[in-house]
């Protein structure tokens, strides 16, 4: 693991105001995530998981505190710069896939490159194809999104998150809509990508999926409750065995 810091938050807080009511969704969150880490963020609903992910994903800004993503001080960016940094440094995986309907896997994966303004990728189609091969869907490139199974859709989404060579992959309940076997496949894919050097932050409320990560952060009431390495990491075999799904 390198010493390069991908994520650094300093006393990040987020307060939502509705009328006279203030909701403290996050309070003084200090985090440091290095390149090559695989972090699971857990917590009950209302614990601030989503708020933290929105801030880490540059979709929202903290009310107070500082956030550095890959050495960029995110607080200071305007809307267009936020859009560009999402495009260049982040890859999103959502619970409900969020693929374009009736659009081929290849076109879906290529989508982030449509909005790339740096011109760093000379052959977007080729890159999209490689990303699909990476997630094991090299034979599904021209299938439309509605012709794919849930597990396949999520893998297309992961390929889309990979295609722009991001500094960080953010996964928001990526296994929430999948059955156990497909969930384990996705988790295993994350492990594989992490082994290849990708930094992954994964929000989940399923402990058995979190168990695949290297480090677990537990949130409660908008604060970091625990933050420790995972000792007995799951593998595909162990997870299937635990679920009694061994063939």
């Amino acid at each position: 693991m390198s010493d390069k810091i991908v994520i650094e938050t300093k006393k990040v807080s987020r307060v939502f105001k509705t009328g006279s009511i203030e909701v403290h969704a996050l309070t003084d969150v200090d985090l440091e995530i290095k390149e090559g880490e695989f972090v699971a963020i857990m917590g009950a609903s209302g614990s601030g998981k989503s708020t933290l992910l929105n801030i880490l994903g540059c979709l929202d800004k903290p009310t107070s505190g500082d956030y550095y993503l890959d050495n960029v001080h995110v607080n200071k960016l305007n809307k267009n710069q936020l859009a560009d940094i999402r495009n260049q440094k982040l890859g999103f995986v959502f619970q409900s896939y969020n693929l374009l309907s009736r659009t081929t896997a290849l076109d879906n994966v290529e989508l982030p490159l449509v909005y790339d303004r740096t011109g760093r990728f000379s052959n977007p189609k080729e890159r999209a194809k490689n990303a699909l091969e990476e997630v094991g869907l090299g034979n599904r490139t021209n299938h439309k999104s509605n012709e794919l199974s849930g597990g396949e859709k999520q893998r297309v989404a992961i390929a889309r998150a990979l295609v722009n060579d991001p500094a960080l992959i953010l996964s928001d309940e990526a296994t929430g809509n999948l059955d156990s076997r497909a969930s384990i496949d996705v988790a295993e894919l994350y492990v594989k990508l992490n082994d290849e050097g990708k930094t992954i932050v994964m929000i989940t409320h399923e402990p058995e999926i979190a168990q695949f990560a290297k480090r677990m952060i537990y949130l409660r009431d908008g604060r970091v409750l625990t933050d420790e390495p995972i000792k007995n990491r799951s593998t595909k075999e162990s997870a299937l065995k635990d679920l009694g799904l061994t063939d």
Partner: protein
Amino acid sequence: MRQLFKTFKVAFQAINKNKTRSLLTMLGIIIGVAAVIMTISAGEGATKEIRDQISGLGTNLLMIYPKTEHRAGAHVRLGRPIVKKDFDILQKNAVWISKLSPLVVSGAQAVGQDGYKYTPIYGVSHEYFDILSRGIALGNAFKEDDVKAARKVCVIGETLRQELFSGVDPIGRKLRIDKIPFTIVGLLEESGKGTMGQDQDEIFIAPYTTIQNRLAGYRRGYDMIMASAISEDHIADAKIEITELLRESHKILEGDEEDFEITTQIELQKITGNITGILTILLGAIASISLIVGGIGIMNIMLVSVTERTREIGTRLAIGARESDILTQFLIEAIALSLAGGLVGVALGILGNQVIYKLTDFFIPTAPYSILIGFGFAALVGIAFGYFPARKAAKLNPIDALRYE
């Protein structure tokens, strides 16, 4: 620039994905543009037809008639009637006039061997046929001595031949007007429906002397004197000359107004041109309303589309689309739809004009500027009504949009 090209591609993919909806959206614009083109062209066609008919009257035409005024719903003549003395003065002295004919209008039942019909009666001189360039299909027009001798001869139109003589050759046959027998010497060439829809072949023409002797009387004078200027360039001269001569004949003092009016061919063209021009604008404006309605249709669909694709927009924003990317994408979709609709509308409009021509014989030349107006309007509508939904899409909050159900 490269980004714009990519956005174009995205927009066209979206249109392509919803073919039926795109087509239905375009329908409003298609109909609107076709309507604009067809109405403007119809207006132009009518203008042209009227102009042709008026110049068919003979471009050198001058019409001299007593000034009248509306009083209690009736036309009342002001001043003196136009009588034989005036006609003789003009005939003797006017140098810019080549032909002259009085016109005495009446109406009566015409009875022939096979039927009868109430018909307009024109009493004119032998020069009338030349002034209005009305051709004779059978027989001949009556001659100068027929007029001088007030002979009971006449020229009739095709409609009378059908009604009174069942379409046989009427030359030499007799018909009776108010029990007075007339001998038919000529049959007019058919000229069809007039500008205002009247049947120009339903006509009975006889020497004005005969009509005055037998039917109309002398007291009210002539309804009109028709004159031909020696050439088109001298219409204005002829008008001045006639005015001078008639003022003298009517003993109108210096500074007093004339008690007669002179209308020339060119003035007539101007007036009708104005009327049809206003008509064209009016029709075009009505048709434009349908274009605006079509535009609202586009806005409607685009708004629905934005709502329906909220998740997609959220996803695009999350993976790095700027607001401007989303705005342009939806704007391009709207403009592309209205332009495509505009193109189809232009084709449909031109086709429609042809169909009308085939069905009704009313020739409508497709006015090139109507295509420009229709198409330009369609583009404008696309931008105007596409902007609001596009802005709405671009301003979506990505966090909410991503989770929109």
